[in-house]
Each structure stands twice: as C-alpha cells, then as structure tokens.
C-alpha cells in the first residue's frame, strides 16, 4: 500500500514539482549543487540486508552498500558521515530516485539494459559482481538447482531475480511455483517456515542471510549453481551527467587506490610519493577533482576515511564468509578495473 501511495505521489510530483526542477538544470549539475548546499547526501539503501546495509546495535548503517554511499559523501562533501540513509524496497527504489527523493541509489541493484533504456536511470559503477543463486534447507537433500523441478520458490517481486528464476526453469524444462512477497522479513520467514522449498535472490544476499542465522546456518545450503549475471552498482538519474561522473570516478578512485596499495592507515605517507598516478589521485598535482566539480583531494578524503574498496569489502563481506573471487581488483585476478585518473 505504501508503495502504491508512493507511485501515486510520483504522478502528482512529476506533474506539480517537476517543472521547476527541470528549469533549474542549467547550472551544471543540480544534484551536485543541491547535495553540497544541503551538506548531506540522500542515499537510498535497503536497510535490511546484512553485509550490505543494516543498522548495527548503535543504529549506524553498516555494510558495503552503506559504505558506497559514504564513499560518494566523502568525495563530494569531504566527510563520509554526511549521509542520510533512506530505506527503500525493491519496488519503490526507482520511483524514489526518479522523483528526486534520493540523490543516489546503492541497493544491490542489477545493471540491465531495460533499466537504463526505459527507467531513465544510469549505473555508474559495479560494486559487486553477483549472480542469482538458491538457498535450500539441507533436510530437503537437494544438491543442485537442477533437482528443483516442482519446487516452490520464494522470490522478491519486481526484481531481476524474478525473471532469472522464470528463465532458468523454462530453459531446463522444469516447473516451479513462485511465492512473491515484497517484504524481505516476510519472505525470509516464509522460507524458514518451510512454505518455500528454496529462496532465490543474489548469491551475496543469500550468503549473508545464511550467515545471519547464526548456529542454524548449518541447516541451510547455498546451491553451487549461479543462474544469472547480476552486476550490482550505484544508480543515478539520467540527465545529470556531471553527477554521474562524480559517482563513477569516486568509485574508480577507490579502486585505483587499492591498485597502488594505498590504505586508510598509510595514505598520509603516500602524499610524498613520486608516482605521478598516485600524486594525481591524491590531489598532489593536476586538477583531477576540479574537473569533476569536487575538491582535488576527493580521493584522499575517500581513502583516509573508508580505505580503498578492498578494505570496505574486508569490513563488511569477509566476515560473512564470502570469498572475494571475481570481485577482486584486476591485478589480483578479479574484474575490478579502473580507467586511468588523468
């Protein structure tokens, strides 16, 4: 119902408030200007996914997605803590971004053609190279997704998982009964109670969900089959290219820092580095930050406060028992590769 109201609100919003927003777009990047003026980044997250975004016992949002928001805040505002986290669901996330309720969406969202083509969105980077997997109870005796013929599968509606699962069963000539529940707590409850034989979503989320079960984690089995490509990354609205650049290069800087072996602890010692790449990255020479409309030390601010992307991973994902694999930087056999900052 809330989602319904939100979408209805978008209609009114697009009609009433839309016009002034469009008119103001002459000044470079409205989103960047508004964020700096506000002194706070409005960042959409799930707020319910351990390892990606979940408030800790102090109420502080923790996880890789949350740190993705902080990374952009550090680049734009110089302070990683100047983020307001806005909880979103799989169904209202795009509406929230399109209507301007949030500046940036970092919510394990898969980069697809239709989303860029139809939804007026742009994916600035890939934070996590993921894929759809299945979680089952060990008691069912299932060892492979191919054995799931006739199974009942819990899936979140409005996600790419929904389509990937339908495609997979179709491709393998198998039948399944979908149970589509929007609320993540409800859908997990349905899986744990045995209403569904399998729970399907991004393998990363399954691994962290399994981990969050504590001692009962051993009763659950993550099937080895990964049935789709799910590159997850930060999303911005179309039509604000400068803001898109800011988000993209903030992430690229974080990866470049890891390539160069810079960490939060040793970044100050790199300020005297002779390596021109490092000097450009940390703002010791050239005007890389200015070109984006940021402070030249934007990358320094990111690394000083959050470390390079590898440190963010080690803090949030490694404790969940997920190996870095293809998400490592390219020099270590992974896919993370940043274009040169020059």
């Amino acid at each position, binding site marked *: 119902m809330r989602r319904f109201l939100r979408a209805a609100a978008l209609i009114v919003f*697009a009609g*009433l408030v*839309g016009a002034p927003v469009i008119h103001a777009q002459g000044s470079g990047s409205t989103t960047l200007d508004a964020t700096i003026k506000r002194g706070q980044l409005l960042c959409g997250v799930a707020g319910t996914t351990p390892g990606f975004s979940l408030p800790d016992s102090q109420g502080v949002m923790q996880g890789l997605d949350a740190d993705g928001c902080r990374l952009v805040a550090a680049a734009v505002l110089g302070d990683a803590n100047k983020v307001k986290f806005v909880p979103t669901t799989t169904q209202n996330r795009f509406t929230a971004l399109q209507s301007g309720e949030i500046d940036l969406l970092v919510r394990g969202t898969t980069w697809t053609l*239709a989303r860029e083509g139809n939804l*007026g969105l742009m994916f600035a980077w890939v934070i996590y190279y993921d894929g759809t997997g299945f979680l089952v109870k060990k008691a069912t005796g299932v060892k492979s997704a191919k054995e799931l013929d006739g199974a009942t599968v819990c899936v979140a*509606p409005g996600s790419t998982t929904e389509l990937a699962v*339908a495609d997979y069963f179709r491709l393998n000539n198998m039948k399944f009964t979908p149970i589509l529940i929007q609320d993540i707590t*409800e859908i997990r409850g349905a899986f744990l109670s045995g209403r569904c034989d399998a729970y399907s979503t991004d393998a990363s989320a399954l691994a962290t969900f399994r981990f969050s079960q504590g001692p009962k984690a051993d009763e659950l089995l993550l099937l080895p089959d990964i049935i789709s490509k799910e590159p997850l990354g930060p999303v911005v609205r179309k039509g604000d290219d400068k803001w898109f650049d800011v988000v993209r290069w903030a992430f690229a800087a974080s990866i470049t820092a890891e390539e160069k072996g810079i960490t939060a602890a040793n970044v100050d010692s790199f300020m005297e580095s002779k390596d021109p790449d490092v000097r450009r990255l940390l703002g010791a020479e050239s005007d890389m930050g200015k070109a984006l409309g940021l402070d030249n030390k934007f990358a320094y601010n990111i690394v000083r406060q959050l470390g390079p992307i590898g440190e963010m991973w080690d803090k949030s994902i490694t404790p969940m028992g997920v190996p870095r694999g293809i998400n490592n930087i390219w020099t270590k056999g992974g896919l993370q590769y940043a274009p040169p900052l020059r």
Partner: protein
Amino acid sequence: MSQATIDSRLISDRSAPRRPLRLSWSDPRFRAIVWQVVILGGVAAIVWYLIDNTSRNLASRHIATGFGFLGRTAGIPIGESLISYNPALDTYGRALVIGVLNTLKVSVIGVVLATILGTLIGIGRLSKNWLMARLTAFYVETIRDLPLLLQLLFWYTILQGLPAPRNALSIGGVVYLSNRGLKLPTLNWESAHDATLLALLAGAVGTWWWNRRARLRQEATGERPAVWPVALALLVALPAGIWAILGAPFQWDIPALRGFNFQGGTNISPEYFALLLGLVIYTAGYTAEIVRSGIQAVAHGQWEAAGALGLKRGHILRHIVLPQALRVIIPPMTSQYLNLTKNSSLAVAIGYQDLVSIANTTLNQTGQAIEGIAVIMAVYLTISLSISLFMNWYNARIALVER
C-alpha cells in the same frame, strides 16, 4: 420526500413566468452560467496542465510512456491463476487479466462469506442467550479494533505453521492439508458432465416455471398443485438419467505426493486462504453491526401487529420485518462490500498475486509506473462502480415506495 408527492402538472402551473436571459450580472441565471463555465474551465486547465507537464517531465527524464508494454512478453512468474499462463509466451496484458481475476476471486467469495458470517454474528449479538451475546460482542469489539494488515500477517503466519507436505494432515487419503495449502481431489471433466450440467440448468428453469404456474393457480383457484414431484424429476432424475445414458463417467484426480509437493487435484494456497480468512473475519465484524442495527431499527410493534393479524412467525420475519430491516442494512452494506474489495489489495503483504501485486511487478519490470497505476485505478473503479450500481439497483427495488 419523493417526486411522486406533488403532481407534476401543478408544478408547471405554479412556476414563475420565463424571462429572457439578460447579459447582466444582476441576472441570476447569467451569473450561474458564468460561474459554471469558469469552474469547468479551471478544472479542465488543471487536468491539461498535469497531463502535459507529466508527459514533458517523463520525456526529459527518459522514462518510457504509453501502453505498448501490455503487448510485450511478460516473463514474470505467477503462482496461481484461473486461466492458463506461460511466462515465456504470454503478455503483460494477460498477466494483468490474471491479476483482475485473482482479485475478483477473493472479493466475490469474500463478500458472500462476510455477509453470511456477519449476519450470523449480528443475530447472535441480539440473542437472549447470555454466552452467545457476550461472545459475539467480544468478537465484534476485538476484530474491529485490530488493523487488517496485522490480522492478515497473523493468519498467514498461522498457516505457515502447518506441517510440510511430507507430514501433511490427511483426510481419508484424498484431501491433504500442509503448509503448501489444502489439496483437494478434482473430477476429471468430460463432455458427459457438460451435458449433465446443462440438464440440471434446464431442470432448474423448468422447476421455476412449474412453481410459478402453481402459484398463479393458487391465487386463481386457491388450490396449489404439488411442486415437489416435478422438482424431483427435473432436478435429480433428468440430470442423473442423462449422466447414466452417457456412460456415467466418474473419475477423480486425487492429489499424491511426488517430489517437493502434491501433484494432481486442485490447491487452495495458504496465501489465498489467509487473505480470504482475514478479509471475511474483519469485514464480518462490521457487517454484524449493520445487521444488528437493521433488525433493531424495526419497531417491536411491527411483530406484535403482525402477530395480531394471525401471521406465522416465519411469515412475519420474511414479509414484514426483513423487508424493513433490509432498507436500513443495504446502503451501509454496500460500503462494506467496497471496502472488502479494496482491502484485498493488501494481498501483496502475504504474497497473494492479486491485481495490485501483478501490476506492481509489471510497473517495476517495465518502469511505467504511471500507466501501471492508471490500470490499477481503472480496474478498481470499474469493480467498485459495478458493486455500487448493483447495490443501488437492489436498494431501489426494496426501498419503501412512498405516496
């Protein structure tokens, strides 16, 4: 006061002489026309501005528009459907039709059950039996005070607590109850069954006709021909005879556990059942009060007066009290039917794929929120207006005709 009170001929005689319309502010008719034009124009301008501005903003944000997506292959999985659906071949349009049917499936059955349960509880609250009156009062006061969403989640959680298919509760080895739902056997449908059904229908029409004839005869002569032998022949013997002539096919499709779940038969899913249960129990709390107020609105003197005329108790209830009570009951009941239908959109919370659930998935996959919401609104408007029209017609039929 109804129109029939005053003779229309008298009105025309009494009305003031017609004056020509003057283009002056002092002419009330001219003023009225000017105001109507201004207000109508204002509304039209606002609507035009909203539509134009929305479409311009959507275009500038590179968001696709139009209803072309209805013809595209859906690819979205749907759990339960009254018509066949294949995500690989069928379109978003068909998926939405399934959503509408699923909404109707829960609303129509919900309205019927809520009326029956509400009536029973409403009558129960008037009972002279202390326990019965207290229990039903407790029901009404509790159910009305708890949010519906909470109740739905409650019922859904309860149903999830049922055993897994492997340990399903079995009734005679043909009906199984598990956390996958209630599995019922179905009859293997053959053409002989079509013919039997047709014969039954024809029999019903024939019985109705015979009953009518009997009533007319009774009114004319005071003699009432027996109806039951004809009814028995037409309603039982005729269909049974045709069924027997066509070979008496009778094959059940009995559910059996294979793999993860029961195969064969038909299934009532926990999602559907939880939604139906929640809606019926919640709405019955309100309809019970409506029924109670309706019955109490009929003065006790009516019973006594009818009794004095020598009418039987059943006749008093049917011909005197109920028609008057219904006049009080029907208008608020219409609101409850509309509420139940609209409340069925809470289905998304417990995973029943009603119209809102499927339309939301559609608008999420296609990104066309405005069109998706427009479809939802159009469908609910159509369903609600249909209910209103029917109930208003029924209300007019039973309304007290004043003279």
